[in-house]
């Protein structure tokens, strides 16, 4: 048989196995890094039609998230405000700023909505509900990051299923007093009054880890 198979072929099976492992490992590592939401989602920061700065509105003007996102406590969806909401102030403030032109156009003509680019999007088969979270002590910051410091909103957290489950398995440290929900700078560990409270017990929080919590 040695005529057919030279000596070096003896090492071949080992090399093949090694090669497969190497390639397989590389593919796995590549997929894990490049194809998970951590890579594909985090950092997404599209340019919006109006250069709206959350930072200015929250920090300089002291506005609450719910002034604009006013449906968040009642609906699964946290609405993007109607042009009318912007115009409440901007009919007087910066009334002729060219950057606000799309908003004014939308206010005048209801068939010209401002085309905001969606940043945070869950798959259609995942049913997330804003109202149950903000009503039960979960702050905006847990999922959206420090939007109050952003000039252009970017995707901060990765929104994979583990992201949701991490919190659903251990909710206590993500909970905060209900009046601090929209205070994105709030740090419970620095709040002597609340840091030792057990909200899970006080509010009887029962997070669901079941499929039915999100998939219907």
């Amino acid at each position: 048989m040695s005529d057919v198979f030279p000596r070096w072929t003896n090492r071949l099976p080992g090399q093949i196995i090694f090669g497969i492992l190497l390639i397989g490992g590389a593919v796995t590592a590549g997929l894990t890094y490049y194809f998970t939401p951590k890579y594909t989602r985090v950092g997404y920061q599209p340019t919006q039609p109006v250069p709206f700065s959350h930072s200015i509105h929250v920090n300089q003007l002291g506005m609450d998230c719910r002034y604009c996102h006013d449906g968040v406590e009642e609906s699964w969806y946290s609405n993007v405000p109607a042009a009318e909401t912007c115009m409440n102030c901007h009919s007087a403030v910066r009334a002729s700023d060219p950057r606000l032109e799309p908003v004014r156009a939308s206010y005048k003509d209801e068939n010209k909505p401002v085309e905001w680019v969606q940043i945070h999007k869950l798959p259609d088969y995942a049913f997330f509900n804003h109202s149950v979270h903000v009503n039960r002590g979960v702050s905006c910051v847990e999922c959206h990051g420090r939007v109050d410091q952003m000039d252009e909103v970017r995707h901060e957290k990765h929104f994979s299923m583990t992201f949701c489950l991490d919190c659903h398995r251990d909710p206590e440290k993500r909970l905060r007093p209900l009046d601090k929900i929209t205070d994105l700078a709030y740090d419970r560990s620095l709040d002597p009054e609340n840091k030792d409270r057990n909200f899970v017990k006080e509010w009887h929080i029962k997070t669901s880890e079941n499929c039915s919590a999100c998939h219907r």
Partner: protein
Amino acid sequence: MNDSTTPSNRNMTGPRHWRSLEHKADSPEFRAFVEKEFPSGVDLIDDPVSRRNFMKIMSASFALAGLGVSGCRRPEHKILPFSKMPENYVHGTPQFFATAMPTRGTAVPLVVKSYDGRPIKVEGNAEHPDSNGGTDQCAQASVLSLYDPDRGLNFKRAEYSVRGNVEVTEFTEDGKKTLKVEPKSGVLKLLDGLANGKTHVLMEQSSSPSRARLVDGLKANGVNFYEYEPVDFSVHAEAAGIAFGPGIEPYYKLDEAKAILSLDCDFLGTEESAFQHIRGFAEGRRVKDDTKENPADLMNRLYSVEGLLTLTGTNADHRLRIPTGSVIRVAALALAEALDRIGLDGAEDGIRQLKAFAGDLSKDFSNSHATEGQAKANTSKWVRQCVADLVRFAKRGDKTLVMAGYRQPKEVHLAAMAMNALLGNVGSTLLLRSAKPSGNGSIADLIDQFKDGDNLVVLGGDPAYNAPADLDWAKLVDRAGKVIRHGYYIDQTAQGADAYIPAAHYLESWGDARTSDGTLVPVQPLIAPLFGGMTELEVLARLGGTESDPYKIVRKTFEGIAGEGDTQWEKFLHDGFLANSASGVESREYDWDAAQAAWLDGAEPVKPPGKGDYEVTFYRDHSMDDGRWCNNGWLLETPNPVTRITWDNVLLVSLKTAIEQLGQAEAKRLLDFEKVDGSDYDKKLGGLPGRFGFHSESGRFFQKKYKLTIGDKSVEGAIWLLPGMADNTVGVALGYGRGVGRVGGAAGFDAYQARTTGTQHVATGAKLKATGETYEIACTQEQGIMDGRPVVRECNADDYAGHEDFVKHFDLDSVHHTTHLVKGDDRGYPWEKDIQDEMPASPYMRKGDDKGSFGVDTMSGPKLMDVQLQQWGMVIDLTTCVGCNACVVACQSENNIPIVGKHQVAIGREMSWINIHRYFSGDEHNPQVTYQGVACQHCEDAPCESVCPVNATVHDEEGLNLMAYNRCVGTRYCSNNCPYKVRRFNYYDYNRRPMGVEDGERAPGRFFNDDNDLNNSPLHPGNKSSNGEWELIRWYKDPSRGSVPGLDDGKKDGGEFDPEWDLIKLSKNPDVSVRMRGVMEKCTYCVQRIQRAKIEQKAKVRDTVEALDNPDDKIAALDVPDGTIIPACQQACPADGVSFGDVSDPNSEVYWLKRQNRNYSVLGYLDTRPRTTFLAKLRNPNAAMPDHFDIPNTVTEYNEKNHADVFGTKEAKADGKEAKQ
């Protein structure tokens, strides 16, 4: 408890429990079919993409996928907020509006759910004074018709050319007009100057006061008005007018009637306002607490006389099978008996005449009711005993009710009302409500009064399709000057019109109506007309040149009735009805002289039909109505409640008609025998080997086609053998074969072609002749069968006392199969209290119970139930369920269940989550019928969960059996392991199936017969519906458009825009995933409604829960109150037969219902511990009747098959013998 050994097939005698004749005959083929579990076609791959092809395509797809991803193209989604926020609108939360669906003479009061401006779900208005929130199947399905892409989309005008200043209609070579799209104003100008005596308007019936007002205005200008309904219920009012004087209509209050006699009145199925009758009937039949009450004292009793097997007949305690045309003889005898027994002065002559009219019923109808063994039926005795029972109730002071159906002539109605007068029902169960007749002419008047050159305006209906065949509609159209058509579809009537005005759906525009009790209800729009359609009101107003804004028209009418002012109007719209606007109830005496005169004048002797001289009964179809729902896929695919046939109408005949009257040779062919001598089969069946066109190999039905000839008219259709039909009659459903639309255009045959003015309901002297062709019928009858098990459990009301625990004597049932999750001292059944410690442990821990072995960690089995959470469960009461299908369609609407098409249903792939099973039992000529709705049982120990390899179906802590669609890989193991066969698999991408495309060509109506375009997947190239492009390529080119097939062309034949995909998407419920190909699905207990209620409860108590000290109080505060969560099926049920709630809460309705004696689990002995349990059916037969059975036929069958003795009848008989000796 149960002395049964193993079930055996030996020694079967007596009546048995069967779902079809095949089942009854128990042929080897049927056995083989049953044992196969699924029809064999169901898992057949008929995808033309071969394996080799698949690999080729897949490699290409991977290459593409690589391209797409490495390009890192993120589909960019836009958020488009409002310019100005509508008031009280919160994005993402549904809104509810009160409205009503107008029907012929009445309306269905509704509350419609709207999501982001789209109406998506219709529910009954529970606050309406004459409603419990239940609806019928048509109201539930009506929302789909709103999004029907085949509806009339444009204003159209017959092609014309302008010569000089005159517009001249152009005709095609064969003298036809062709409709072309025209701007609205161009079409409406044809209405100018038509408000005169040369205009004839044909309309449907309507209860709208606004329409009556506009019509009155136009009548003043001389315009002539006519009404035509192919299925006309006005005989009720007509007869009441004769018997009690004009200006009234009858209103039936069934809940107070202790006994009801129906003279061919299908009040539970196809009569007007059937859903309200079901409510009343169920109310009178319900046994609220069988641990304290004796059903024999409470339940109503239903006697039914009919020629067809209707929903009412199948729910009757005693049923007489009499050809429709001969029911008048039964009515005569019944009235004579009633007069005789109650005694009315001077009625002797009348009694004699009536008896002479009735003749010898027993002789003419010798097999009219079920009997024990071979005994002959005694029809006269049946009628006499029935009337005796009614009289007995009346003398006791109880109320009864006699009803006659719309198919019966007014003489039968007069007899029924006379009996009601004698029995003292007028004013209690039969209310006479004042009503104003419309005063419009009939379609015959239209033909008479129409002069050549007059103008014709047709509002709604479709007279070209459904006018009596002898009236010659086409000729009338030829004689007309201008023909203006206003309708929902471009139908046969529209084809010959000069102008076509698309009709608005009732959810699109303003209107008003009156419900059957006369209460004024608004028809409030939830969306602007999608295609600019107009309502009847607008057209009439435009015709008269008056205010044509429908809102103003309706408001003006309302102000005329209820006075001016915003408050009242707003309350009217908010409540969905005007309080205290029901018509007045009049107290009147029965006018015996007038009635007798009318009877003598109108009643004609009838000859019973015979061999070769068949009687044909035309009936309103349960799904299609008179054809108005012809393109509604939900209704087309919902099986007929009695025949279980989908997508078609058939020629229904009885068993005897099939065997005897057609001759043995003909019957052989008809029944598709293989061994006609049947030596291998049960002799008791008269040698019928039970192979009725039934191909057990595939579980499909290939029926012989027959030509039905009535006079000089004929129709062809597949023949279908329905046990329980009257002999020598043929039942034919109307409403099919209208030829409109891509979904239902080709479904069934058009029975109107054989229906003339004189034979609106019954035609005699019909002949049947085989055509030699076969036709496939998609019937769900044999599928999902649970053979030889006590799936349905029944008891006679008079046997109940002394046998309260009868449900426990079936099968191998023991206590814990039904009484898991019970806590406290009232655990288990009352008579089992003393053995509670021996109860096996539930795999669930129980709330707040730390005693005994319950809830202890060392217990084996899954410990999933969280004692701090609510535990969901359902109870279905089989006594009140009449099998009406409302829940089936409601579920389809709520849960985005696709329609799959006739062919897919035929091979066993129907998707409906709720299957209503219909069981026949007993005499094959006069069977007893039982209905049972079966959906996922949510077993605590679910067999499906243990076999899922990917954990896609799992249990949650609240007892729901979940289905995570996104996790499902489609192994179908779960479905194989489900003992209830309630799981449904998406064999294809049914939701994205293009309509009306066959072999790549658009072919109206053929849509659902064809399978090719189901393979509309990324792997199916060259499919014209997707423009020959692979999905991935389309997606790559333009991700924002998704991968919707056919969107790119968006063109129908003739270059018109086809909004198919956009419209179908609009009808979906956004709270529920739309499932794709390869995914299993099933009932979820409407988990989306549960989650919504839980979230709303949490938001509600957000500030208060913290202050509660006791942890139990916190739990209680977070619990959703009982009655908040109403699944779609419960919501739609007009009988209130479904209850849902927390089974661990002692104050909930389900907790209490599950403690009823009659509560049982299906297949409980498997220890699956279903959360859905059933309350056994109670029948209330009268022992004096000749068709009385001591115990229900299903129980007799069970006893004999399993050597059991559920009611101890054998013992009783043995005791009797001993006593004699």
